[in-house]
């Protein structure tokens, strides 16, 4: 996979393409869609967000229409304009082993529309954590690889085993890339309210940098760095430690023009 520029819009941050209202497609290498699960998900009750100057905690809970409705939307032409404007990465997940397989099976006939599939193995807002049991994970990775004939990316977090050992497994199972990292479980106290969710934003940068560095030293996988990238310098740092592309996430909510600035820096 070659992304020009090597900039990806992070899954969930850019929804289903809405940020193309504010960013020129030529500055985006690939746009990752919000994670689609097997069953439709309403997501978590509000409040779903709380922000400070250097982090955001979200408990969206993977709100999405489910794979069957998504396929109906695809067939109806709802996303045709989006596909014409940018390269799209499909992101998917399930609430258990079988659901990951079912989404892959249902989406296999449509894979040519996408430049890659990203398998979200690390959402902190759902109960199922596929990274906690390496034997099952290996079985899942192998099964999904057999079902899909496309550039396959595993989105890994740092909660579970060491990210580099999981990445080695991803490579062993014939996958092509990893996105490192996802949000991390976190909690915010706001007066009497406690908000639990996944933390993202600049606060993640040193953790994500370490993850990219470790995985680069142990694998040849294509690495999309994700976590706290908020400036041209941040992007440079991630490329220095071995990223092939950078994913722009939470910073979009502060300043969408950052994508253009990072893109210009790398052209």
């Amino acid at each position, binding site marked *: 996979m070659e992304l020009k520029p090597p900039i990806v819009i992070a899954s969930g941050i850019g*929804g289903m393409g*809405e940020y193309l209202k504010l960013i020129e497609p030529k500055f985006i290498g690939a746009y990752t869609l919000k994670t689609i699960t097997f069953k439709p998900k309403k997501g978590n009750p*509000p409040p779903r967000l709380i922000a*400070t100057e250097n982090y955001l905690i*979200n408990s969206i809970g993977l*709100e999405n229409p489910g794979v069957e409705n998504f396929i109906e939307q695809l067939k109806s032409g709802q996303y045709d304009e989006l596909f014409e404007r940018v390269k799209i990465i499909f992101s998917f997940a399930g609430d258990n082993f079988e659901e990951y397989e079912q989404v892959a099976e249902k989406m296999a006939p449509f894979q040519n529309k996408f430049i890659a599939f990203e398998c979200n193995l690390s959402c902190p807002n759902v109960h199922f954590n596929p990274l906690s049991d390496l034997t099952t994970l290996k079985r899942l990775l192998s099964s999904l690889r057999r079902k899909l004939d496309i550039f396959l990316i595993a989105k890994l977090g740092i909660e579970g085993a060491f990210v580099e050992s999981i990445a080695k497994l991803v490579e062993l199972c014939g996958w092509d890339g990893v996105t490192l990292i996802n949000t991390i479980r976190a909690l915010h106290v706001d007066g009497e309210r406690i908000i639990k969710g996944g933390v993202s934003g600049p606060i993640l940068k040193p953790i994500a940098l370490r993850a990219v560095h470790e995985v680069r030293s142990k694998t040849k996988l294509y690495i999309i760095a994700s976590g706290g990238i908020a400036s041209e310098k941040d992007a440079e740092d991630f490329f220095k430690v071995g990223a092939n592309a950078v994913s722009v996430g*939470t910073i979009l909510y502060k300043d969408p023009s950052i994508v253009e600035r990072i893109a210009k820096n790398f052209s």
Partner: protein
Amino acid sequence: MENFSLTRDELIQLTSDSFLITFNEDLNFEPTQFIMIETPTSIVRKPFGLGRWYGKLAIGVQVIGPGTKYIIEQRYLKAHGPCGKGFTPPSGKGAVIATPACLAIVFDMHRRFLCDVFIGSLEKLKIEVSFKTVLGDEEFVALLKSLKAYDWFFVVGSDQMEKVSYNLLKDKGQVFVSLNEYMACGVGACRGCAIETKHGLKHLCVDGPALRGEEVWN
């Protein structure tokens, strides 16, 4: 929808904590649409309702934390918008009920819809306005109870004030409220501003912020 910068023209103090800011630039918008303003105090932009003050583009700001404090101190602001769905009132006579920080929004609605406007404030306004203004919670409740012969009401302020107003007005006409939920993107991408309504999940930044009160409360 676009990214733009705004240059402050006037900063008008309305109460001890509420301000009206007019801008040199103009923007086409529909009533209740809003912009997302960048502040250094938050990693997400913050929503502010669009309005006008004697023809000029304006927003009202109630200072409640570091972001709103920053906004009233700046000459230039970065923002995107207009966000949200515009509000079109039903036919008939309407009344808009608002807090001082929403003065620009309701000034614009008054000119567009020729509706009556009532301001509920905790303290006396520092400027003269031609709208009826009531002071304090008791007077506010008395005002709502006294309103008659309207086909629709639009309430904009805090969620609590909107709920109280809805309960007092729901049998007198159709009640619309402009709801507040935490927002990160303002464009329908993050799914952060979802609320449960009688008609399922709605995202206030694209389906709102104005909804019928009956969709949200019994």
